[in-house]
């Protein structure tokens, strides 16, 4: 009686298994990235900009014999995933990266194709991009990456209404900032919103202060392996200033529980509960999406304030210079790849990027700024980057990937007082530089 009921069930299970196996076999045919299937695999960071990347791939595939397949990996795990597969048959032909330290280990392991041959054949591949940006993908004198998205300098954003009510002008110097903080505190708002829960927003403060006080050379020295850079008086001065800022209550008390990535700090500014936020240029479009009324009327932006007596050029910029496509040495279709890379300075590319709020770093970008969705903002950004003598790459991208976790820990612990100046210095000195 019950046995009869059992049999059909087992059969059904078996059938499902067989069906699934055959389906998986189908999946193997077109899904796999392994081996040479006559296509170029381009791997990118998974986020809203993929729209543009897909567009370009479609355009390319219309006229190319060798087709491009776009693979995406969810942002948070992009670097882990890439490192796992880079030395296996699953590695892509072309992949997205942040230049600097994110590709140095790969260069050292001999995995990347130097692009100077491509550039010899097609000089545009280099000179159509802003130099400060292009140079960030140069390792040991050879170019390894082509910029493929927009530049993301870090700017100081503010809520105009909140500042007006406190009688504060957007600060141009550090002292003005401290003054503004004091006035905002008196008004009962959190002077500066900070997504401490994500840690990388906290890091941005270090990036700028170090650059303003000591110039980019200090960081470059440290990156080159000179540990004494961290102990220098300039370094200690920067740390003291940060400590001073935190201790005045500029960031409030609960910033470590606030995240940028779930909209927490964004909302603070938009709702008028905070005056400032230091964030990458994508902040503007984020506010436009989440809080359009606020963004259109009251969102203001300035460059990071100048620090009096600082050695760094006050026009320097910090942030993500851009993202790059690098090419694997073992790619089987280098000519097709070179053709594909040409699209990265095409007019189509520039227009598509600007439509979604990114600011490309090509020389023809200038033409399109007036027609972009946010002309004033784009103009401000573009001029800032074009005029910047130096563009400091985010620290966690400049250092090799494997240092980022410990770097973040040190940053967070210094801010909330668990590490003092010496502790921070030691932690930074312990970071691997290659």
């Amino acid at each position: 009686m019950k046995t009869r009921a059992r049999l059909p069930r087992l059969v059904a299970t078996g059938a499902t298994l067989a069906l699934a196996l055959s389906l998986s076999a189908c999946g193997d045919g077109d899904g796999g990235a392994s081996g040479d299937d006559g296509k170029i695999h381009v791997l990118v960071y998974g986020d809203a900009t993929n729209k543009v990347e897909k567009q370009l791939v479609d355009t390319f595939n219309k006229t190319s014999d060798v087709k491009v397949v776009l693979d995406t990996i969810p942002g948070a795990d992009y670097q882990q995933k890439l490192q796992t597969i880079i030395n296996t048959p699953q590695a892509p032909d072309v992949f997205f990266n942040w230049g600097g330290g994110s590709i140095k280990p790969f260069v050292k392991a001999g995995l990347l194709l130097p692009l100077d041959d491509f550039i010899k054949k097609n000089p545009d591949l280099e000179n159509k991009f802003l130099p400060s940006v292009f140079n960030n993908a140069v390792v040991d004198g050879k170019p390894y990456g082509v910029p493929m998205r927009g530049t993301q300098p870090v700017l100081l954003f503010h809520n105009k209404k909140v500042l007006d009510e406190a009688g504060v002008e957007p600060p141009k110097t550090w002292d003005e900032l401290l003054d503004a903080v004091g006035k905002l505190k008196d008004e009962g708002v959190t002077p500066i919103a900070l997504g401490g829960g994500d840690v990388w927003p906290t890091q941005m403060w270090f990036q700028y202060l170090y650059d303003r006080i000591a110039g980019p050379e200090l960081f470059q020295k440290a990156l080159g392996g000179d540990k004494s850079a961290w102990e220098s008086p300039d370094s200690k001065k920067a740390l003291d200033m940060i400590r001073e800022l935190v201790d005045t209550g500029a960031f409030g008390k609960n910033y470590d529980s606030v995240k940028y990535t779930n909209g927490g700090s964004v909302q603070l500014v938009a709702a008028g509960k905070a005056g400032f936020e230091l964030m990458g240029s994508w902040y503007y479009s984020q506010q436009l999406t989440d809080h359009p009324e606020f963004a259109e009327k009251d969102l203001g932006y300035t460059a990071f304030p100048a620090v009096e007596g600082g050695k760094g050029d006050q026009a320097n910029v910090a942030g993500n210079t851009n993202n790059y496509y690098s090419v694997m040495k073992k790619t089987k279709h280098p000519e097709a790849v070179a053709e594909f890379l040409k699209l990265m300075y095409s007019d189509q590319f520039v227009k598509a990027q600007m439509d979604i709020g990114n600011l490309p770093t090509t020389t023809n970008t200038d033409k399109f700024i007036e027609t972009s969705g946010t002309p004033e903002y784009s103009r401000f950004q573009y001029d800032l980057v074009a005029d910047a003598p130096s563009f400091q790459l985010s620290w966690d991208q400049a250092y090799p990937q494997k240092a980022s976790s410990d770097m973040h820990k040190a940053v967070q612990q210094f801010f909330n007082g668990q590490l003092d100046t010496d502790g921070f210095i030691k932690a930074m000195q312990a970071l691997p530089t290659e």
Partner: protein
Amino acid sequence: MRRRPNYLAGAGSLLWLFLVGLPLYVMLAATLRTRQDYAENGPVSLPDSFTLDNYTRAFDSGFGQYFFNTLVVTACVIGIVLLLVPPLAYAIVRSRGRTTSAIFRLFLLGLAIPAQAVIVPMFYLISEAGLYDNLLGVILPTAAFCLPMSALILSGAMRDISPELYEAMAMDGATPRRMFFQLVVPLSRGGLSTIVVFSALQAWNGFLFPLVLTQSDSTKVVTLGLYNFQTAHGIDIPGLLGAVVLSMVPILLVYLFARRALVQGLMGVGGK
């Protein structure tokens, strides 16, 4: 028999209802509000708008394909578990041999192995076998890690089958095989349902294996799709939660169907 209402238990369950109900309400409410409404007013406020956009956004980003993939993975994992575990549990409960005892210990110890500990060698195993970026490469490890718990649950359920029934069948000259199909399997339906639900849960919500062992969009599962919603620059909590709710519905249905059997099945685990 007098039954005074149990105020303490009642109060306790009310508190728990609040603790469970509030987040679930927030989640559902968030999916029915516009992004602006959620961003302006925060998660706990009463909704100011109504929209089904969050769900359509979820589908637009490819959730149809992800659902299908997850369905395939879940079905296959259940299949493998149903194929391998009942004979295993039967042996554990009935066999007197030392090998079987050792095998049981092996599985008990297997409970202690976290999936993320073996993920790197797993990647190489799967990749060498040519199963990278293939649903089968996700199915096999996921099923393997369901085995210890399923063995524990099912052997617990089978323990309840009284020895006299076996003896009665033995007197009729039944082989172990007959006893398995005619006695053990029908009587452990509760346990079987439990391991089905358990394995289904593992497969449906599995994250680590798909993350490391798949790459292209055509093999993405729902959990990865959810992860896609979270990027550094694009914050879309209502959309994310919409996808979460969608991903929860199938498994909720399975649970609703199997509920009674589920309780019966876990009865055996607790032992009588």
